[in-house]
Every structure is written in structure tokens, then in C-alpha cells.
């Protein structure tokens, strides 16, 4: 299951019992001090846990923003690559990496979205019996596959067996493996939410099944599916492990998916992570901030789409 699933409606399903926290008379008499104490202790611990969980988030965001923001304010960051820039020199931008990340993300989405959505349609609308259970099980396995293993697999196929070079397209292929399960699962959930009455009404009008799916089911679940796709994309765009194996870094702009190296934001961060010279360090944090912003935009867009048109029961 994706960790950034569309949040369930926490507030509505919440139970808000009134009063029992404060001393009151129960049928068994007054609550003893020990029980009250334990109740208070639990309340304090739970609050504390929440604050402890927030601390790293705030800390991470603070260190990335405070050390990365000033380069992002420079217009050169968004228009120049790192071509000819050494660790010692200031300047240069991240446009090569941003472009690489977006391009690989787009290719990944283009391959995995049709496959994943069709698989979800199969699981919800067509699948029954052994085959459907097998497909569902395989999706579960894909969900759990570590990203480095996905990278290794594509390496074993693309480079060792087929004899190709390490190129951007191979990176996208490995990301496809990671994106498919998240999109299948989220799409599946959304399709299940579509009320059966809609399908039956459509069949009653004599509409064939495939048209019912395309014209009734998919449009009803559309926003939810888009949300799932955006969240899945956000996840794979921040992925680094397969890129270490399949997508070496380069300092200049590259657009060829099938030849030469292509830079991405994660590999740009990885490249200079151990550098101690200040210009390079600044660029590492700035690249990290750029990546976070990019992923955050995708996440927010996903939530926005979900809010604008959710499946109504």
C-alpha cells in the first residue's frame, strides 16, 4: 500500500467522547487516582509522540530550506546547467537535472499508467478466479520490491543480456516497475468506490460493458485515478537507487533517451554529497530543495484533484 494514500476522512469517522477524561461518576463509583494518573500519562505520551514525529520533519525542511533557498532565488539556477562548473566555482544551475527528472518521469508515466490502469480495470471489472488472485498477488510482490532490486533487474536485462548502454530509457523502465503497483492499487480502490448502480443503469440502457467502463466507470473515478498517478509519480521521481546503477550523472543538458547519460536531481545531489567546498555544498542543498519542491507540487496537485472531484457515493 502506498504510504501517501489519499487520507481517509479522519475527522468524520473520529469518535469524540465527552467527559470521561475528567473525573466523573461511573456506575462503578469514582475513578481511582491511579487510573486517572495513567490516563493522564497516556495523554501526555501520545502528545509527546506526535511532537517527536514532527521534529525530524521540521528539522529536515529547515536544514534544506535554510541552506538551499538562496541559490533558488537566482534565475541562473533555473536556466543554466552545470556544464564547465567545478566544485570550486560558484554559479551554474540545475536545469539539466530538473529536465532529466521531468523527462524520465514523463516516460515512466507514459509506460506505466496505461498498463497499471488496465490492470486495475481487469482486477475490478473482469477478474475473478485464479488468474485475478495471481495478478493481485503479483502486484503485491511488485509493491514490496526494493528499488535497488528493480534497478538490478533492468541492468541484468538491458545491459548484461541485451548489451545496450546505460541510458535514460533504462532508468525509466526500472521506475515503471516501482510505479505500476502504486497506481494499480490506488486505481483499484477508486474503481471499487464507483457505485454498482451506475454500471447497472448503463447495462440496462444496452450499453456494452467496455463502453460502460470507458464512459461511465472511468469518468466517475477519474479524479481519484489522477490523484493516484500523481502520488505514484511523486514517489518514483525522488527515487535514487536505480539511477545509481542505470543513470550516471552528467553536467550538461541531455535530451536523448537512448544515448548518453542524463542528469537528474537525485543523481545531482548524490554526485557532490561528500564535497566539502562551499559552492558545491550549496548546490547540493539547493538541488535537494528543488527536488522536494517538485515532489511537493505533485503531491499537492494530487490532493487538489482529489478534493475537486471525489467519487460521490
Amino acid at each position, binding site marked *: 500500500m502506498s504510504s*501517501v494514500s489519499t487520507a481517509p476522512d479522519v475527522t468524520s469517522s473520529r469518535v469524540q467522547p465527552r467527559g470521561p477524561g475528567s473525573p466523573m461518576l461511573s456506575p462503578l463509583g469514582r475513578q481511582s487516582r491511579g*487510573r486517572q494518573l495513567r490516563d493522564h500519562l497516556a495523554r501526555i505520551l501520545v502528545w509527546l509522540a506526535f511532537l517527536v514525529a514532527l521534529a525530524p520533519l521540521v528539522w529536515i525542511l529547515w536544514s534544506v530550506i535554510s541552506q538551499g533557498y538562496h541559490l533558488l532565488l537566482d534565475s541562473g539556477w533555473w536556466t543554466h546547467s552545470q556544464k564547465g562548473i567545478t566544485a570550486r566555482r560558484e554559479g551554474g544551475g540545475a536545469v539539466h537535472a530538473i529536465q532529466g527528472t521531468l523527462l524520465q518521469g514523463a516516460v515512466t508515466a507514459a509506460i506505466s499508467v496505461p498498463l497499471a490502469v488496465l490492470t486495475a480495470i481487469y482486477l475490478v471489472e473482469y477478474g475473478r478466479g485464479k488468474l485475478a488472485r495471481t*495478478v493481485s498477488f503479483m502486484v503485491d510482490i511488485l509493491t514490496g520490491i526494493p528499488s535497488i532490486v528493480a534497478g538490478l*533487474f533492468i541492468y*541484468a536485462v538491458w545491459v548484461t543480456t541485451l548489451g545496450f548502454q546505460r541510458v535514460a530509457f533504462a532508468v525509466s523502465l526500472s521506475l515503471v516497475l516501482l510505479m505500476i503497483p502504486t497506481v494499480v492499487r490506488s486505481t483499484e480502490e477508486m474503481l471499487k468506490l464507483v457505485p454498482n448502480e451506475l454500471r447497472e443503469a448503463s447495462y440496462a440502457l444496452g450499453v456494452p460493458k467496455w463502453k460502460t467502463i470507458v464512459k461511465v466507470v472511468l469518468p466517475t473515478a477519474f479524479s481519484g485515478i489522477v490523484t493516484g498517478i500523481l502520488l505514484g509519480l511523486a514517489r518514483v521521481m525522488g*527515487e535514487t537507487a536505480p539511477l545509481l546503477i542505470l543513470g550516471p550523472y552528467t553536467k550538461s543538458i541531455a535530451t536523448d533517451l537512448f544515448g548518453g547519460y542524463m542528469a537528474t536531481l537525485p543523481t545531482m545531489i548524490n554526485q557532490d554529497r561528500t564535497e566539502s567546498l562551499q559552492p558545491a555544498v550549496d548546490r547540493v542543498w539547493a538541488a535537494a530543495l528543488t527536488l522536494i519542491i517538485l515532489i511537493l507540487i505533485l503531491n499537492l496537485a494530487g490532493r487538489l484533484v482529489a478534493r475537486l472531484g471525489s467519487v460521490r457515493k
Partner: protein
Amino acid sequence: MASVTGVSVADELPGPDGRAPLAGDGARTGRLGDRLFGGAAVGAGLVVIGLVTLIGLFLLWKAIPALAGNEANFLTSREWRVSGDHPRFGIVEMLWTTVAASSIALVISVPVGVAVALFITHYSPRWLARPAANLVDLLAAVPSIVYGLWGLRTFGPTFVPVQEWLTAHLGWFPLFSTTSISGSGTILFIGVVLAIMVLPIVTALSREVFAQTPVAHVEGALALGATKWEMIRTAVLPFGRPGVISASMLALGRALGETIAVTIIVSALSQGTPWTWSLLNGGETFASRIANNAAEFDSPQKTGAFIAAGLVLFVLTFVVNAIARIVIERRKAFTE
């Protein structure tokens, strides 16, 4: 949905005008479209099956020759020399590092994650519940390389005094004995970073099951005079236990396979470093060793050795995830 067949069969009965209802105006039953679309859907499902099978087969196919040429015991050797004519490699050290770090991550993240889930579902003020849930989800949106960078450059230096305190006061305990590693690249530290990374997974799933606690259980407990904590202990936690277990398993799966954050942070040991149980030692997980050596995949023998390590990791995460699924499925069977 399984109950709806959707096969559009033309009605046999003639319409009011004496013609078959659909045949008259030449309407199609859509059978061809159905066949194409249904075929595409089944095809996509088959592709997924094929992909997973291929992954398993390919990894095996590439790993077996390398394993056959291995002159050390793959499962018990601590060595890792994959180049040359006499490769000797084993996984036991990686296995220890991986499992130890992931266990630390679980020990920290499960109690905290469950408490956070309780906070969101039962303790927080109403206005705070949703923002709190979103904030914790935001932790999952931070890319792992940023965790690595932050762990290496910011969190790590702050953590070193904690480790020094541990060795100074608990050094007699084998798990905290002194080692050659002085910085923050220790198993303990990656465990802590992994704990932060998997926290949103534990919280998200626990939150979902806690919110589903039957209102009757909650009200029953409260009506009997339970305090809020007693209500949670007797109604919410028992109901959510399977969910929490599977959440922990999914988190464990994630922690086992996490690559780049671990690779960046952990200090690799040089060959022949004496064995120690200390958590303050460095080491390499499966994933970090593969990632660290990604540039050296030049001969089939070398690549095969790393693929063999990847295969073990694959099996490990597979087992853990399977356990999580089984627990979820069993819970479903109970509640329905």
C-alpha cells in the same frame, strides 16, 4: 464487480413493432469492443505476472553461475571478493547489518507510529487531526536521498555524542562496545534514520484501522466507566492489532530495502575487520553494497555476485511483505 457480467446479449423477444429490438436499428451489441477491451485488460494483468516472473527468473539466471564459481560459502562467509579468478563472497555480514538496522528502526517507529496514530484518531483536537495526518504523510514525501543528505550532514554530527555516551556508560554490553567507527556511520544511526523514514507507513495504516474501531466497542468501554486510556487499551488497540502488525511488516519491508539513505550514511568496513556484535559498528546492507559498487558491474562474475545479493534481499522483503498481507487478509476474513 464480479456479480455483473456485462455481456450485452440482444433481447430475443421482438419489440412492439415486431422486430428484434436491437437488430432493427442496426445497433451493435458491442461484442467486438468487449472482446478487445477485455482482452487488453487481461493482457495488462498477464504483463504484470510476466514481469514479476521475469524478475525472479532473470535474477536467478544471472546469480547461479556466479554462485557456482564462488569458493566461499555464500550464506556463512564474511568475505566479499568478487573480482579475479577465485571469487570468495558471502552475505552474513550484510544480513546482520540489514536486519539489525531494520530491527532498530522497527523498535523505534512502531511505538511512536502507533502513538501518533492514536493522537490523530483519538487525542488531537478536532481542528488538528487532519493537518496532523497530512504533516506525518509529508514525511513520506521527502525523497530518501534527502534523508541521506540530512543524516550525513546535519543529524549525524548531533548524534555522535549520543553514541559516545552509549559507549562510555554501556560499553560493557556487547551491543554497545567500542569500535573503530568514530563518526555517525553506524548501524544504530541508520536504524534511527530508517525509523523516521518508515514512521509514516506505520502511522498511516494504524490510523486507518484505529478509525474503524466499532463505535459500539468504544461507547461500551466508556459506558462501563473506563477512562479514555482504558477504552483505547481494551477496545481500540485489540481491534487494531492485526493492522498494526501488518503495518510494521510493511515498514520492515521498506527498511530492509532502503538504499540511498543507508548508502550515503553508513561507513563501510574494510575487508578483514574483526567481527563484533556492536551496533556502533559500521557495515553495509545488501542494498548499500550493491549501490556502492554500481560502477563496477563490468564482468558477469562480479555482476552475478551482486545480483545474488539482490536476490537474497528480494526474497527477504518478499517474505516480510507476504506476512503483512496474510495478516491483513485474515483480519478481513474476521471482520466481514
